[in-house]
């Protein structure tokens, strides 16, 4: 940005409380026209709350939102849409069993009573040509990858003639390549088509490469704003946490007499559509070992995770834990200390409407001291333990009785982490553990996983982030088209070879 453009959207002195918890304390954010503005902050800093106040999803207790110099009464997201402010939320909001076109058309704030589908489709096709991404319009949402879904969410907003586009962690479920593509296109649009973009992210790389300005929040307070060319990642990191960052490197202790804990033999699994997702997959994981599975998303990782977690039945093949056939029953999970950190924790491992305390108790609610006299719940013990875990794992929540769905994305992740890692673990299954976490939390989770490994846990790590796998694994496998196609160790890994196998060549 060469000339300084005027502000198009200003949120001034916003404060917002949820009960006891002060989510935002006098925060100001000013977005310039035709620019990309990044909003940074730790998990639970209040980023989502701030943009939800701007969108009218929440009403701020104090403060006002100016849009194009005028104070606007935005009392619901509908008002914001009509003004030309669009938002892509942290979680997907597409209707899964409808097509891309249907999702896009139905999202208009003013829908006619009767939709003339043929006319709408023709119009949509015409307008799609001006869009930065192309997606097959008649594809059902369920058939899309995370990256494609995110593109649909963005297109949905752009087609509404959005002037201000707010993106809440649009890249946390994307691979770095996908993220670069999406953000690059958005940056170009902001310059060429006068689009103003506010983007929440945890990745400094994205801020440095694609944003013009940046605002940092810490614990609900405004820390500062700057032009991106005047800051650097270490400065931003220090602004986020309030002090210098000291990186403790991961300690990998050599494992003494490893024994095979987890064995998968010739596993065949079909996906929801009945298509084969895993075509005879075999692997084994030893105690005190992290085996990483790298691959482009949609090559069978999700189905592998679901089978292991008991969410999907295998077609054939066997899973053995501790030399016993494993059926993902509660008794077996307990006996083998088998724990799981699935991706999208709110969707896969939490009940959003139940409290943090209840969610923390999912593994142990039916055992003493949480259950007494053969099946009565001891709520006191459950709350007591929740308080301990909240403290030990630094979960930011108003209290143990808050519904877990009200927590910030990162803190939902921490809740599951606390539940799964608090006790002794023999076998740990991890899938994309760091999606949506701030850098401090990522380092923390990596430490926890490594610590578990050093205590003798067998860890199977499925991740789309190759750097994460290279950093953590003892052994690295590449999955492509439902098969393991390559095995190596991080020391001997060659990125070009791995890339080739990931791409399926």
């Amino acid at each position: 940005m060469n000339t300084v453009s005027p502000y198009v959207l200003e949120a001034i002195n916003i404060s917002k409380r949820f009960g006891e918890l002060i989510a935002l304390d006098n925060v100001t954010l000013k977005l310039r026209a035709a620019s990309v503005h990044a909003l940074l902050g730790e998990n639970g800093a209040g980023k989502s709350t701030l943009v939800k106040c701007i969108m009218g999803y929440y009403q701020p207790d104090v403060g006002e939102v100016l849009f194009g110099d005028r104070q606007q009464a935005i009392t619901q997201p509908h008002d914001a849409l009509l003004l030309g402010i669009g938002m892509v939320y942290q979680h997907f909001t597409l209707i899964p069993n409808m097509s891309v076109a249907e999702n896009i058309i139905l999202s208009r704030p003013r829908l006619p009573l009767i939709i003339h589908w043929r006319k709408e489709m023709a119009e949509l096709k015409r307008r799609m040509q001006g869009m930065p991404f192309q997606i097959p319009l008649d594809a059902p949402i369920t058939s899309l990858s995370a990256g494609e879904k995110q593109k649909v969410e963005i297109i949905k907003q752009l087609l509404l003639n959005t002037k201000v586009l707010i993106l809440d962690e649009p890249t946390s479920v994307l691979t770095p390549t996908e993220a670069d593509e999406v953000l690059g296109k958005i940056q170009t649009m902001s310059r060429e088509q006068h689009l103003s973009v506010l983007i929440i992210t945890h990745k400094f790389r994205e801020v440095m490469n694609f944003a013009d300005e940046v605002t940092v929040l810490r614990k609900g307070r405004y820390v500062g704003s700057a032009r991106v060319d005047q800051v650097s990642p270490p400065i931003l990191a220090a602004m986020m946490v309030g002090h210098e960052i000291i990186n403790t490197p991961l300690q990998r202790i050599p494992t003494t007499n490893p024994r095979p804990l987890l064995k998968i033999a010739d596993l065949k699994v079909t996906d929801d559509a009945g298509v084969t997702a895993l075509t005879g997959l075999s692997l084994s994981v030893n105690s005190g070992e992290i085996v990483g599975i790298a691959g482009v998303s949609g090559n069978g990782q999700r189905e592998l995770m679901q089978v292991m977690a008991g969410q999907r039945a295998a077609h054939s093949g066997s899973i053995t834990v501790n030399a016993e056939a494993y059926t993902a029953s509660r008794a077996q999970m307990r006996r083998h200390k088998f724990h799981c950190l699935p991706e999208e924790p709110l969707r896969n491992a939490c009940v959003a409407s139940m409290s943090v305390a209840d969610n923390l108790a999912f593994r142990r609610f039916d055992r003493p001291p949480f259950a007494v006299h053969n099946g009565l719940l001891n709520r006191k013990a459950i709350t007591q333990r929740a308080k301990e875990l909240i403290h030990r794992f630094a979960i930011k929540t108003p209290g143990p009785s808050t519904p877990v769905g009200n927590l910030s994305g990162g803190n939902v992740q921490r809740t599951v982490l606390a539940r799964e890692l608090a006790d002794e673990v023999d076998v740990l299954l991890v899938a994309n553990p760091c999606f949506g976490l701030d850098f401090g939390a990522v380092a923390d989770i990596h430490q926890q996983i490594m610590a578990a490994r050093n205590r003798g846990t067998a860890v199977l790590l499925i991740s789309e982030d190759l750097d994460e796998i290279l950093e953590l694994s003892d052994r690295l496998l590449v999955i492509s088209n439902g098969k393991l196609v390559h095995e190596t160790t991080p020391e001997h890994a060659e990125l070009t070879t791995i890339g080739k196998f990931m791409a399926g060549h």
Partner: protein
Amino acid sequence: MHNFMESIAIPTAALVFSLLIFSGFVAFSGNNVLEVLAAIYQGAFGSWFSWQNTLVRAAPLMLTALCTALPARSGLIIIGGEGAMVVGGLCATLTGISLNGLPPFFVISSMACSGVLSGGAWIAAVGALKHYRNVNETISSLLLNYIAIAILNFLILGLLRDPATLNKPSSFPIGDANMLGTIGTTSIHAGLIFGLVVCGLLWFVIRRTTFGFSIDMIGGNIRAAQISGLAVGKLIIITCFLGGAAAGLAGMIEIAAVHGRANTSLNAGYGYAGILVAFIARYNPLAIIPVAILLGGIRASSGLLQRSFDLPDATTLVLQGIIFIVILASGAVYGRLNWFKPKGDSP
């Protein structure tokens, strides 16, 4: 806190709104609205006599409501209370007829057992179909209602028919000795006690036991329940069984406390009204009690309306239907009302 406020305020507003629509209906039929509303109140809660009538009708409603409320907590929308009640009543009658002559306490207990077991099995089958074959539970439970009623008609017109019953074909009687008595000097039968006790008991099970906790996990997010290793299928089937058992007990009570023999009075619509009760009570077994009394009152006032205003018998059913639709529509309002949104310090 605002959740609790909401769950009282919204149904109340919906009830008031339903009464307004109903008033329009009454005015259209040429009656004085205020007089009719006053008569409904009079017929439901206006005197000790009408209270007794109301409570007698509330008892089966409490039980059939549980048939929808319990499975709903595990995520299944079941509308098979009518069928489970018919089956329960029918099996209780069969038991009563075949054991007639044995000590009454033994006969009555056996009738209760067979009502509970058969009603439970009836709805457990719905749960099993859902879990193992992925059959939509709402549709299968609805179809099972028709099957139950068909079986009832088949038996009371054939095998079980007492030739002495002419204008209303019925089964042989279970015998006066085997009838459930009334409470004290009232006309309220012991069924009310069953209703209250079962509602209280199941509330306790849901709120205080690990079983209830598991059910809420399954209903809240089945994936989270699976990843915790819960035996989802088994738990769903047990929940369905408990719901069906409550409705089966309602059938047994109608036989043993009111009719004394099986006939078409068994499918008088308590099962369907129970769905409404469960919805209004938001699947909370304790809330079912007052809601059942309210709906029981509306049903109880039907006779008075007929006598004083010459309004058809179905009038209260119209009111019930209006409430049903308004309550269903009001479900869309939860969590959206601005004055319930967390504002300052009261989330």
